[in-house]
């Protein structure tokens, strides 16, 4: 059974349908790269998985458990308690970091551990230290977000998410807001996570990273999955003109991926 399975997800903003029936299965330890032009619905899809957006049709299951809505009978949104518990199993990292500015790096990581996981402070501090170490910020534990560079902030955000030991991690263009010289350090952390067996869905325009790290690439177009396959298949054998022209934009910059 797939770790995550999304079936026929439809999402409307007012009257415009931005997701038009997404089907996607993600297996344990897969690293799925979501690529596609801006506005194709990548962010919206990730937000639906994490229940940050409601969707009016379709079903998402995590390890066989229906996420966000009742599994059978009339389609109803689950209660806040259940939804929160489900969100805790799915980590998400945002383009704009969204660190808590009134807390140190360590406190940012500890908050969910103590308030959601119910850990003691000592336990949580231990785990925070472990993960900040892992993302290379052992010496920045006591720093506030404004004292950190963008790359460091994003690494804290990743530590904050993975410290919760989620079953699945969602990354939404996490390097897009960074200065070019800070991108590599964040990608390195993500690569390290991928190697350790974390299941990940990554929206990214870093095609070299996608080619080297993803186990599967999914091309989204107009709110639908247009092509899906290994990096080799998708990046080197685009089946549609749209994908060809999308990929073409990256050639000039990096050479053919």
């Amino acid at each position, binding site marked *: 059974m797939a770790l995550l399975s999304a079936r026929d997800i439809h999402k409307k903003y007012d009257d415009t349908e931005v997701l038009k029936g997404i089907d996607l299965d993600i297996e344990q330890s897969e690293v799925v790269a979501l690529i596609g032009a801006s506005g194709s619905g990548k962010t919206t899809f990730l937000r639906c998985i*994490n*229940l*940050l957006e409601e969707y009016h049709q379709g079903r998402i299951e995590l390890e066989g458990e229906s996420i966000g809505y009742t599994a059978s009978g009339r389609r109803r949104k689950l209660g*806040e*308690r259940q939804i*929160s*518990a*489900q*969100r*805790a*199993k*799915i*980590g*998400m990292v*945002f383009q*704009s970091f*969204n*660190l*808590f*500015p*009134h807390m140190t790096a360590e406190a940012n990581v500890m*908050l*969910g551990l103590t*308030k*959601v996981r119910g850990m003691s402070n000592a336990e949580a501090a231990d785990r925070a230290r472990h993960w900040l170490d892992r993302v290379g910020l052992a010496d920045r534990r006591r720093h*506030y*977000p*404004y*004292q950190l560079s963008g790359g460091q902030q994003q690494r804290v*955000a990743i530590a*904050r*998410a993975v410290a*919760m030991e989620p079953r699945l991690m969602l990354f939404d263009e996490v390097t897009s807001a960074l200065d070019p010289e800070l991108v590599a350090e964040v990608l390195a952390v993500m690569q390290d996570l991928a190697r350790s067996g974390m299941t990940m869905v990554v929206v990214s325009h870093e095609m070299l990273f996608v080619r080297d790290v993803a186990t599967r690439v999914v091309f989204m177009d107009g709110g639908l999955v247009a092509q899906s396959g290994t990096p080799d298949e998708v990046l080197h054998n685009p089946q549609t003109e749209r994908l060809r022209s999308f990929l073409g934009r990256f050639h000039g910059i990096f050479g053919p991926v």
Partner: protein
Amino acid sequence: MDPDCSTFFCQAWTARWSLLEGLMVTISSSIMTIVIGTVLGFVVGLILTYGMLPLRLLARLYVDVMRGIPVLVLILFTYYGLAILKIGVKPYWAGVIALSLFCVSHVAENVRGAVQSIPQGQHEAGMAIGMRFFQRLRWIILPQAVRRALPPWVNTALEIVKGTTLLSVIGVVELLLASQQAIARNYMILQFYMAATIVYIIINFSIAQAAAALERRYAYLRY
């Protein structure tokens, strides 16, 4: 007037206890009002932001009405109104109630503005690690909002301190009325009004200084 006591300082010394008492009334009514107004204003502010629709509209109506009526009218209304309804409260309390009604509306609006100025991403980051609404409010939103609400809150507090002078109109002997009573005895109009002015300026500057010190401590609150 006693010819042996014709200087301002001698007269002020003679009136020292009543002046001091007036000052205490000014300070205590200010503190009372600010405490009541802040606590209730905080709640009303949260209702303005997150309350269910009918409750929110009610809070909005309250705030907008209070902000459109002069404080002096609120004070007189409360004072005479409570009296005619045979609710026996001292003028001091009628005044504190009226000032609090005013204070609540201002604090509520400040709190709403501060809470709504926290980026949506903060809520979402809390959601993403599985925090529930009240947990997010308690640990993420309010700690930041409180710091943002501090500067307007200080302005409100200064307004309240100045507003306590209006209690003199319903016979509460606070600093202004105590000064006027002294003036009635010695006709040292300029001196006593000047002295009272200086006291108010000292109180207000102290509050402003304390707030500025607090704000400096919150330098880390940037995005």
